């Protein structure tokens, strides 16, 4: 049969009974330990750790019932079957055996076949119990592990998708997570230029899959906003990232605003979320409807970033929310709906209390109803610039403040490198590391491009823009350009760039020197935009963009200064 050898404790005060039983059990292949009474049984149990106990009910010093109780106690979670040996036959005494913690009883005289069957049966139970217990322990351990992992993941998640400046005085927000991780994303970050980006996103689904998508959004949002990227750049990047990582059918409905306190306006991009609301201090309510697909749906080349723009006065408020607000259900399964939402705006005359009123109304409406989506809502109020209290970037993440603002470089291009290599992307990349300067990347690029192409074409290659007076001249000009580029040997162009902090912005000085002979620049300041000619627009363009612009020396050196301040483009 299935009986593996077991260690079995036999406790009986009657020597002959004990001997007989020992003989039977041993013959069945088990190892036997014997005890003469209850106290002895406890001792033997402690020292030999038997798997099954056969126990006489009535013994001197300590009877079987007491010994059984103590053995069960000592065994703890382990199942040690105890079978009572008894000559008693009345139901009450037999029941008492089981009440004391015994698992079964065996009447004297012993029937060896029944004894063997019972030992085997209890051994199976013992093994099953042990298996169950180890599985239970495994599950408990796994669960602990999972919770611990989630806790760590949540910490990482919270550090990445942190609240940014959501605690600013002009923001009120509500985030009610449905599980450990939230399917909604709410991010706010002050721009280096003093404005504010606020992003509300709602992923299809919630929990882990949504949280995974939220992490890159937060990374991109905070990273790019801190560096001074425009809202549309941030959105484009987020869309591309989500498109790349999310499986088809997963996407993120979102609304993002760029609020400028200095200009008093707001720019809004909205895709897939319920209409946002601009509520003016005088009671006017403007609904802003989604006009884009959610983020992560369209490929980068089809993604569009048209935005709405509104002027805002102090006290005007901008509201956005996830569909969890409008689709919140009460006990009867009805939805809160837009009508009830807009009713709050009609009823609540004190606009500073709107946010808490909406929150309260939704809460009351849900009542005992089940929450089936995340509820997320945010209000951003237009305030005067001083009231934001962080004009100098005090609330900015450290990483944004630590950027190179005070530096200079010199880059010289020689010979064939002038023909083969375009230094502009590299130089622009270095310049754009200055926090906040990125807003002006278009203008800085134009200045650099015009200065270097003038140095190359007119200085080094000695091309006369007078050639460009006819369509044929244009062609000749560029043919000559290509031809002379091939012959470059010792010629060079040296670009020196210098940036100094100035107030909240800075002063970018660019000096370009070339190996050419220069030119007579005594009249260049009179250069006007003359649109009757095909050339000569570079210099007027430069004088418009630069605070200071002049040729020096023989005319082979040009110096330009671009002064910039945040939000005063």
């Amino acid at each position, binding site marked *: 049969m299935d009986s593996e050898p077991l260690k079995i404790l036999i406790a009986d005060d009657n020597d002959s009974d004990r001997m007989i039983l020992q003989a039977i059990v041993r013959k069945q292949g088990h190892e036997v330990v014997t005890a003469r009474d209850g106290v002895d049984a406890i001792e033997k149990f402690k020292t030999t750790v038997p798997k099954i106990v056969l126990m006489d009910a009535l013994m001197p010093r300590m009877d079987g019932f007491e010994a059984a109780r103590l053995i069960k106690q000592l065994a703890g979670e382990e199942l040690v079957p105890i079978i009572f040996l008894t000559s008693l036959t009345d139901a009450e005494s037999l029941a008492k055996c089981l009440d004391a913690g015994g698992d079964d009883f065996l009447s004297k005289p012993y029937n060896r076949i029944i004894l063997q069957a019972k030992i085997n049966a209890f051994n199976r139970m013992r093994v099953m119990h042990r298996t169950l217990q180890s599985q239970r322990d495994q599950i408990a351990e796994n669960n602990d592990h999972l919770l611990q992992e989630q806790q760590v993941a949540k910490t990482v998640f919270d550090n990445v998708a942190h609240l940014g400046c959501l605690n600013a005085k002009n923001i009120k927000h509500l985030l009610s997570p449905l599980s450990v991780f939230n399917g909604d994303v709410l991010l706010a970050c002050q721009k280096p230029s003093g404005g504010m980006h606020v992003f509300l996103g709602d992923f299809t689904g919630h929990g882990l899959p949504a949280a995974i998508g939220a992490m890159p959004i937060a990374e991109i949002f905070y990273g790019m906003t801190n560096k001074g990227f425009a809202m549309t750049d941030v959105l484009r990047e987020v869309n591309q990232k989500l498109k790349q990582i999310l499986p088809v059918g997963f996407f993120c409905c979102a609304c993002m605003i760029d609020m400028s306190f200095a200009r008093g306006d707001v720019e809004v991009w909205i895709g897939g979320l319920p209409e946002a609301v601009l509520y003016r201090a005088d009671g006017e309510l403007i609904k802003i409807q989604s006009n884009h697909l959610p983020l992560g749906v369209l490929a980068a080349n089809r993604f569009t970033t048209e935005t709405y723009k509104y002027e805002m006065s102090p006290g005007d408020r901008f509201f956005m929310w996830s569909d969890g607000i409008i689709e919140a259900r009460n006990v009867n399964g009805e939805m809160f709906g837009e009508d009830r939402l807009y009713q709050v705006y009609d009823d609540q005359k004190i606009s500073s209390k709107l946010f808490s009123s909406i929150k309260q109304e939704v809460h009351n409406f849900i009542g005992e109803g089940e929450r089936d989506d995340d509820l997320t809502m945010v209000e951003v109020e237009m305030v005067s610039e001083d009231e934001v209290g962080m004009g100098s970037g005090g609330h900015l993440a450290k990483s944004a403040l630590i950027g190179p603002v005070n530096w200079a470089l010199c880059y010289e291009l020689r010979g064939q490198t002038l023909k083969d290599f375009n230094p502009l992307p590299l130089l622009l990349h270095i310049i754009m590391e200055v926090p906040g300067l990125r807003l002006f990347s278009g203008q800085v690029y134009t200045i650099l491009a015009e200065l270097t192409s003038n140095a190359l074409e007119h200085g080094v290659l000695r091309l006369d823009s007078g050639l460009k007076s006819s369509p044929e001249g244009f062609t000749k000009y560029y043919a000559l350009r290509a031809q002379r580029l091939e012959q470059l040997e010792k010629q060079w162009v040296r670009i020196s760039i210098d940036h100094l902090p100035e107030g909240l912005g800075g002063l970018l000085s660019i000096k370009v020197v070339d190996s050419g002979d220069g030119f007579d620049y005594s009249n260049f300041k009179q250069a006007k935009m003359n649109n009757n000619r095909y*050339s000569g*627009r570079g210099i007027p363009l430069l004088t418009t*963009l630069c605070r200071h612009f002049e040729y020096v020396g023989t005319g082979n050196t040009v110096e330009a200064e671009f002064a910039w301040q945040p939000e005063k483009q």
Partner: protein
Amino acid sequence: MSITTSKSADGSVLTIRIQGRFDFSSHQEFRDSYENNDSVKEYLIDMKDTTYLDSSALGMLLLLRDFAGGDHANVSISNCNSDVKKILTISNFEQLFVIQ
């Protein structure tokens, strides 16, 4: 950088789409895009995908304007990004072109 063109069914409207940076390197390609198109009465320059414009590109736009009849030319520029628009504005090009 690439330039693509398309014509309306009756051949009177030519749309020129400029992708990427519009600078001296596209001079020949740009010129080829509108020359030899006698039936064209109206020109649309679509700058939806134009990332940048330099001063020589401004000259090329003026070449097209003169080719299309100078002051009687019917040339419009559409879908400019803000950097491109700024350069067109500084150069007063809205007096010469319809900028949409």
